[in-house]
């Protein structure tokens, strides 16, 4: 841009810390009028946090600044006045009530009323609704029920609600993963709306996990990784899918080649899957032998993220699972038989599935081992203290306080505690689901080394991850998924680039 003009939206130095953990560090963002700007990053990279800070849902740490048309609106940002400031948000689920009419959905919170009775003035509301649709050049009758609309019309209703009572071409509209709620055949129309708004001069901030979509419609892109902006406003014309993927996944952290430095010998027994299906994954058949590390990966929609919870028995599914040739019964609502058979699962969602964060480190670490190391009438104190201190020392958890609540630790240290909890006793099978998400560099290599060590010690290890560097560092073999099935397998020796290329080639081939 050669012309100097005031940015429509500018964010400077926005940070937020939750319970001592910095989730977003000094984020910057700049949108020019009439620009379609994409915000991308992996789950946990901080993109939804950034949006929630701009919309005032979360309170930012002091020092951050948010400007609209050069006027400072925060921090702190007041959610109630966002509409006047010219900021509008369309959320992931569109936020529509299907049972109500289009008019009621659009006008909620701004109903025109009759002065005396305070009753809603339907006529006036209907007129305002029609005006809002004129922006988009669509024609939807205000008295239709939202439930009766086709998906592309629903998107238009959500946009109309966000932009009503606004001068043509002003303001900023934020789409927070909105395209997830839109079926593929309605996407073109959605993109059309966005382009129309931008051509009128409105700025569009487009949050998406779909990099292909971003390249298709965005002018520039800002990339978040581990809570930091790693690329601000790069023109998409300079990027291809591999380039943008590289930016999103990143290459931070010097990971060693643990496959080479920690050789593992293959042993008897292991983890066998026969035609396992569930979630978005199908037909998984594989044998992961004890001593082996096997990876599952793919692009975001490939179904690889269903694999971890599925084979760990957390999500229900079909097919057969064997541990050391012994078939494991899987009741619908219980992963108990899997746990008892020695399957340890490090879930992606550490807070929901991994650790009871308000309890202490010692209580969390020793939980799965009480049955074997304690007696029914006495948990025993000495071993709990000893084993917890071993975990704290081995994984360098800081601070090494076994009686502190888990919630007081940073994300990386929590992940180390979670690993220690399961590796205290050698599991038959160790399944890790995206274990290095939102952890710092040091914790990342600690987690990966521990996973490799488990294989060296005789566990069968499965790593489900989109982090190509993690996969290359510890996996003996990697299965790449697309459309819910395994489409390609890589063996060592392989590099992160090989994995990326394999994933990317396949993705490119499927573009229709």
């Amino acid at each position, binding site marked *: 841009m050669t012309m100097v003009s005031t940015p429509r939206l500018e964010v400077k130095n926005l940070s937020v810390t939750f319970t001592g953990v910095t989730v977003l560090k000094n984020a910057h963002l700049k949108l020019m009028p009439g620009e379609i700007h994409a915000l991308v990053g992996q789950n946990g990279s901080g993109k939804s946090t950034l949006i929630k800070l701009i919309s005032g849902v979360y309170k930012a740490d002091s020092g951050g600044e948010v400007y609209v048309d050069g006027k400072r609106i925060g921090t702190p940002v007041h959610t109630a006045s966002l509409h006047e400031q010219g900021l509008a948000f369309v959320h992931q689920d569109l936020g529509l009530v299907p049972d109500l009419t289009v008019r009621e959905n659009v006008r909620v919170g701004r109903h025109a009323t009759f002065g005396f009775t305070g009753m809603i003035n339907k006529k006036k509301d209907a007129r305002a609704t029609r005006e809002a649709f004129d922006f988009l050049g669509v024609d939807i009758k205000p008295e239709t029920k939202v439930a009766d609309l086709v998906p592309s019309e629903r998107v238009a209703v959500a946009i109309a609600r966000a932009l009503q009572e606004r001068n043509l071409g002003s303001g900023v509209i934020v789409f927070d993963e909105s395209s997830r709620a839109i079926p593929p055949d309605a996407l073109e129309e959605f993109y059309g709306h966005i382009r129309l708004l931008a051509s009128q001069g409105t700025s569009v901030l487009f949050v998406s996990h779909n990099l292909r979509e971003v390249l298709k419609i965005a002018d520039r892109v800002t990339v978040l990784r581990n809570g930091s902006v790693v690329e601000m406003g790069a023109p998409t014309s300079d990027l291809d899918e591999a380039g943008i993927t590289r930016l999103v996944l990143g290459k931070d952290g010097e990971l060693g080649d643990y496959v080479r430095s920690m050789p593992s010998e293959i042993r008897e027994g292991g983890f066998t899957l026969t035609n396992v299906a569930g979630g978005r994954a199908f037909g998984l058949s594989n044998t992961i032998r004890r001593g082996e590390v096997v990876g599952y990966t793919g692009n975001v929609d490939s179904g690889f993220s269903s694999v971890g919870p599925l084979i760990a028995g957390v999500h229900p599914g079909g097919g057969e699972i064997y541990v050391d040739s012994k078939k494991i019964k899987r009741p619908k609502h*219980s992963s108990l038989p899997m746990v008892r058979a020695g399957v340890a699962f490090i879930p992606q969602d550490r807070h929901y*599935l991994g650790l009871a964060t308000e*309890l202490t480190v010692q209580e969390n670490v020793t939980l799965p081992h009480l049955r074997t190391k304690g007696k029914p009438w006495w948990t025993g104190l000495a071993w709990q203290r000893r084993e917890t201190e071993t975990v704290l020392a081995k994984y360098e958890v800081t601070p090494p306080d076994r009686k502190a609540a888990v919630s007081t630790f940073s994300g990386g240290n929590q992940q180390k505690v979670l690993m220690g909890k399961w590796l205290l006793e050698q599991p038959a099978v160790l399944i890790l689901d995206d274990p290095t998400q939102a952890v710092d560099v040091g914790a990342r290599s600690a987690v990966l080394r521990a996973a490799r060590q488990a294989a060296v010690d005789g566990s069968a290890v499965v790593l489900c991850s989109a982090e190509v560097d993690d996969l290359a560092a510890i996996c003996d073999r990697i299965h790449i998924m697309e459309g819910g099935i395994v489409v390609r397998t890589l063996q060592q020796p392989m590099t992160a680039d090989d994995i990326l290329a394999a994933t990317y080639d396949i993705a490119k081939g499927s573009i229709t």
Partner: protein
Amino acid sequence: MSNSAVTEKRESVPWKVTRYALTRYSLVILWVVMLAVLVIAIPDGVNPLIALRAVLGQISPIIFLGLAVVITMAVGEFDLSFAAIFGFTAVAIPALNVLYGWPIWLAILTGFAMALVWGLINGLLIVKVGISSVVVTLGTASVAAGIGLLVSQETTVSGIDPLLGAIANTRFLELPLLFWYGIILVAIVAYIMSATPLGRSMLFVGSNPAVAKLAGISVTSVRIGAYLASAALCGFAGVMLSLSLGGFNPISAATNLMPTFAAVFLGTVAVIPGRFNPIGMAIAAYFLLTGVFGLQLLGFTGWVVQVFYGVALVVAVTVSHLLRKRIKT
């Protein structure tokens, strides 16, 4: 992080002990203060030992009901039916024995077994079927109370052999056996909850059931078990109270609801701050009983007691909420 570690190490020993006592046993200190105030305030100059004995020696089911609620609360459940289950057993025993002429042992057995049945109904509907615990236990409470009225023909039934009251009323070290049963049960439940794998399972089921499940704990059994254990304690209280008093008034059971909740929640600020724990509950229960006893000696009756329990409950929950928030950061 390292800074705070250094300052912690430099903390002097007496201050550490003081802080430990203040965070865990401030309720005990408050209790002693309250007793002292009462001794001074009550004009006739009551002997403090006698006052204390009167408080501890009350024939009250609160400790047992408190244990029942601590157990369900600890595993993350909410039970409104405990007072009604207790009342049902306490009413059924004299009614079956006196009105219907059943032998006393059969009446006791039936009364206690019915308490377990109420607990099982709660557990199955809430845990297996998945209905809201508030709705189910509110319903069970009403049904149990209603059937209690039916069985007792809507009157206060008394007339159980007074000699049987000895099982609860006999004095040991100047206090009735009922008090000692309470102490023993509190000790047992406290031991189970803090020192056994079962207790740890309960802790995790209450704190994060998903984590508990992934660690191989049968969350369903722990939850249903909690309702059963809770009902058993209510049944035991029912047996003891009806024998001790020789009969029971079906209406009076519900008056235990507030004091019990107040004791349970106030108990979370003591001994193990931020967690439902039996010893804290027991301390809180006697703290509250002392307060009410004092108020009665000062000539307050009726409305003051209700206000007192209500204030205690809300204050307790507020303090406990703030404690939890502090533990998290």
